[in-house]
């Protein structure tokens, strides 16, 4: 299943480069649009980029290189894409892990609290808060955070990298709406489970409400939550563009944005391929996690 998906994505990624407007040759020779391009010079650059080959040939060449990790050089900076990616990836991974940690901790915590205090003041307050969180646009929040923590309180660095503290605001920006969604998903999943008969039976054994919720209802509600969190993690691993640009973190998302701006389509192709790979790998990881949390899948042949 994974191989055909990757193949399909690779074709699409390649086509995306082909279909995008603008001429890369022109972009290289005439970056500011003021020079007149000599036809001979144009042809040389075109040949050097391999753009004179027929499209399928270009695709096969590109794919062969991509499979060996050779993603080519940027048209624009003439730097190895592979090296650029390797340099940028750690920043994105750090940001993604921090965002994920925030989401897991607060999303689950809020969700459990809401479910346990259903229809009480805590539930109402958190429902209001989470709705607010999931409807706040990331970029707006980022600016607000800068205004408060940097301009007014002078607590955090605006941009650039000064260790952990520089990930705090980007992390919140990346996580905020997902915390809201995750908390609500956790709440409904737990409430769904709490209505089931095995929960009543667990209470009839004399277990208190907290144990019934945590040991039984929450464990069962982990199944939908894992799917959601896995997809989210894959998403932010592919680079959280807004946060990276606003806080000037040299991650993958930032790289992709500058490539799109300069029509650097080898980079865009590499980026699309990379995000697809991340998704496919995360899907695999989620499937493996299911084996851990859902014995029905582990038991294999005896499903249902």
């Amino acid at each position, binding site marked *: 299943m994974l191989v055909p998906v990757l193949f399909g994505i690779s074709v699409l990624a390649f086509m995306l480069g082909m279909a995008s407007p603008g001429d890369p040759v022109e972009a290289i020779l005439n970056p500011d649009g003021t020079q007149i391009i000599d036809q001979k010079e144009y042809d040389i650059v075109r040949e050097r980029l391999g753009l004179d080959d027929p499209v399928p040939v270009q695709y096969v060449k590109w794919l062969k290189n991509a499979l060996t990790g050779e993603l080519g050089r940027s048209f624009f900076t003439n730097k190895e894409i592979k090296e650029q990616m390797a340099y940028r990836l750690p920043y994105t991974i750090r940001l993604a892990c921090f965002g994920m940690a925030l989401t897991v901790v607060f999303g689950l915590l809020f969700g459990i609290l809401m479910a346990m205090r259903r*229809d009480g003041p805590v539930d109402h307050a958190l429902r209001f808060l989470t709705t607010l969180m999931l409807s706040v646009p990331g970029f707006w929040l980022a600016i607000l955070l800068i205004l408060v923590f940097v301009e007014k309180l002078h607590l955090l660095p605006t941009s650039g990298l000064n260790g952990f503290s520089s990930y705090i605001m980007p992390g919140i920006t990346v996580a905020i709406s997902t915390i809201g969604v995750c908390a609500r998903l956790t709440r409904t999943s737990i409430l769904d489970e709490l209505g089931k*008969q*095995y929960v009543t039976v*667990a209470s009839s054994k004399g277990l*208190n409400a907290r*144990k019934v919720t945590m040991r039984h209802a929450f*464990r069962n509600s982990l199944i939908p939550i894992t799917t959601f969190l896995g997809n989210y993690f894959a998403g932010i691993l592919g680079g959280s563009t807004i946060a990276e640009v606003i806080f000037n973190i040299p991650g993958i998302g930032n790289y992709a944005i500058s490539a799109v701006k300069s029509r650097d389509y080898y980079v865009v192709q590499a980026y699309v391929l990379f995000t697809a790979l991340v998704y496919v790998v995360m899907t695999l990881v989620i499937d493996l996690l299911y084996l851990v949390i859902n014995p029905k899948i582990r*038991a294999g042949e005896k499903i249902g």
Partner: protein
Amino acid sequence: MSEKELGKNISLENYNICFETAKGKVRAVKDVNTVFEAGKVTGMIGESGSGKSVLGMGILKLLASNAKVEGRCLYGDTEISAYTEKQMDSFRGKEIALIPQNPAEALDPVIRIKKQLIEAVTSHGGAAKAEGEKRYEALMKRFGFQDSRETGRKYSFQMSGGMNQRIISVLGLMGSPKWILADEPTKGLDAILRRQVYGVLKDILCNDIKSMIVITHDVALARRLCDRILVLYQGEVLEQGDTSSVLGQPLHPYTEGLVRSLPSNGMVPIPLPDRDKESESKEGCVFYPRCPRACSRCVHEKPGDYQSADGRKVRCFLYA
């Protein structure tokens, strides 16, 4: 036997349960006055929706959050209907344990069977895990699981319906309760499993627990198992008394109809409610629209619980 082994009487006084729903109040249990005697098996019979399961769950206070209970439920002299959640936690499973309905859905699908069963012992604190293990081994053997270790490692969805049925019976006994509340133990089971359930309950009665409440629509099971019978219809107890007299010489027209509807008695159905009668009586007897022996008094007046000569209580003007 002493009270220590039998437990205490469970009495209900003017007991009502209603549910607040989007469409308004639904009264599921109405004005129940009865005593479940310790050392006896009391059966609650009635058709689906008659409120028998709700009444049972009400005693254990395991109702949905939109349920409202009025009246009192006493255990001996203590009012358990006034217990806090915390007090209920140490009461459930220890004084009254539940043998739930739908065995397949009564067990947590992601937790191994043994762990779930032992939880019924460890939840009450004090008791060490080792004690739970010992009790688990002994009970599983008794209920026909020779390889209790292997079975304990499984999940409920890996077991057959009959096995799950036996496992939830073990579950009810794990906490060494004084009372067992068996909720629809034969619901949806075939004849062979029904016989197994009867055997299991009989076994529990002979060896472990003498005080039991059996909620069932299975009149045949109730007749064989129970000392006393409560007949419920639309949330009201219409007749209560010893099994032999209630099912042998039924007094209330509904009980009479119920007994006559048994296959062994010719399967005569109780007539469906009369539309006109249904709309005309809102305050009257709940059975009035279907009652073959209704009189004019039944339309607007609710009958009380009238004592008959042999000590039964019947909610019908015929015995006023």
